[in-house]
């Protein structure tokens, strides 16, 4: 039901699920490159939050995502509580507490959509959710994403392919041992 395609060189749909990815792209100074390379979406909650990063001189720089949404350079997607409820019904309401509100909105939105969208995150719980729903190939790390568009960088552990694989596998193991969700 939920079809996703592997990363392609033409403009693939890419959902940036957590603010950590966005902040890192700004910190690395490659946000604009990534925006031009992918069809980017973020959740309405993440788009509406204030984000900032420290530049190389240590100065605090504000990120204005609304500006990119308003100019249609990135897309903001929203979910309703009913969609979130449907997503949570497979995991239990407890997952609403474990996830960031922006992440819950993103996952609710993506799990109720049939569009081919890759999910980029640096949060272990997100990859566990994807593994537990047998959707490991929906996830992509920042490292893989940048490599695909020729912007490869040495990144922190949480942005790496190994990190994604570790937690996707953990989620898949949960599924195999009956600890994962049902019905997805």
């Amino acid at each position, binding site marked *: 039901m939920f079809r996703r395609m592997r990363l392609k060189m033409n403009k693939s749909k890419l959902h940036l699920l957590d603010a950590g990815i966005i902040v890192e792209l700004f910190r690395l100074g490659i946000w604009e490159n990534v925006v031009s390379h992918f069809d980017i979406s973020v959740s309405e909650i993440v788009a509406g939050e204030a984000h900032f990063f420290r530049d190389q001189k240590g100065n605090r720089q504000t990120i204005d995502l609304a500006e990119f949404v308003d100019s249609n350079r990135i897309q903001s997607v929203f979910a309703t509580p009913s969609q979130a409820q449907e997503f949570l019904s497979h995991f239990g309401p407890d997952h609403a507490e*474990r996830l960031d509100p922006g992440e819950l909105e993103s996952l609710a939105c993506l799990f109720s959509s049939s569009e081919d969208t890759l999910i980029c995150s640096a949060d272990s719980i997100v990859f566990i959710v994807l593994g537990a729903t047998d959707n490991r190939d929906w996830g992509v790390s920042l490292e893989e994403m940048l490599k695909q568009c020729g912007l490869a960088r040495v990144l922190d552990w949480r942005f790496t392919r190994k990190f994604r694989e570790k937690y996707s596998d953990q989620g898949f193991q949960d599924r195999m041992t009956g600890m994962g969700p049902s019905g997805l």
Partner: protein
Amino acid sequence: MTLGNRLKLARERAGRTLNEVSGTTGVGTSSISEFENDKREPRMSVLNKLAQAYGRPLAFFFDPSPASNEEVVLWREEPDPSLAPDIEVKFLKLCRQYHHLEKWCGAVRDVSLPLAEGSPDQFSYPQAQALATKVRKDLGLGDHPGPALGMVLEEVHAVKIFYLGFDPTGCAACAYSSQFGAAILLNSKNAPWRRSFDLAHELFHILTWNVFRIGADSPVARPTPFEEKLADAFASHLLLPAEALQNSINSILEDGKIGADGVVNIAREYDVSMDALIWRLHFLYHWTNRDDTKEKIKNIKKETHTKRKWQSPESDELPGRYVALATRALNTGQMSTGKFAEYLGVSRQEAESYVSQDAVEDEQIEITPT
């Protein structure tokens, strides 16, 4: 319970009017009303704003079980009414978060305290004093319970203790719930020796929760003045055991008197305020004139106030175990980085450093069970 019911309940429990919520969230009053009456569904981003305004996690609005009516915060010297609801919301939120962390890490512990039983009309000073003696013995607190009390309650008996700073009044509170167990809130702006007494005072309310709080349709939210006096008597007997205190006094007694320095030193030894110590002496040595005792306190304070400096209180709001569990939950994929930041009250960037520090390597140490 519908989403609308939960929205209304959360707003009412937070003591907010539609207008007030509209003012802080920017969501129109008619929209909020429609959401509460299930006429329209808010977007998740709007629900998130409302949840923040009510001090509720988003999960509260997705919980299919009936909303619990049992969470009561009991105050010792309640803060200004304009501040109390916000502090209560924050305190209860921390209690629930602590419980979530325990659950996610498989570290839920039951409160193991010698809870009192009986009815309120049977409970008087001798019972409060006997309870103090029993608690001191059962908890292994020794002759000087003050310095160790907080650690023993937290580490051994699973009482959740938080420190929040609030002005201009208010000193301590407690809550007891079948969901998160026993929790105590102390004012971090109070002097450490006052916090010891507050802790013991709140412990009395926890121990007697079934005596004074249960029985009515909903928990009794306010202690009577007599219950407060019992809590003070309990705290005094717990922190200043008669025999040990008399031995301490005898060891510095000169010609049947002790100087102001001696009083200060004993108060430090037992981790209590001078007021608490002198009132304990009042009852222990059967002084009869309360005005004389008040005068003694005033004079000793006058003489010693420059000697006993107020050390800056610890600024940590969160128990060490809470932080350790949160770190574990983050690094085992039990919670998101954003949630971790929220639970610890740190920035997202700071939260991310916990992932980097703790999860770079997957090195394992082999342990052979013995």
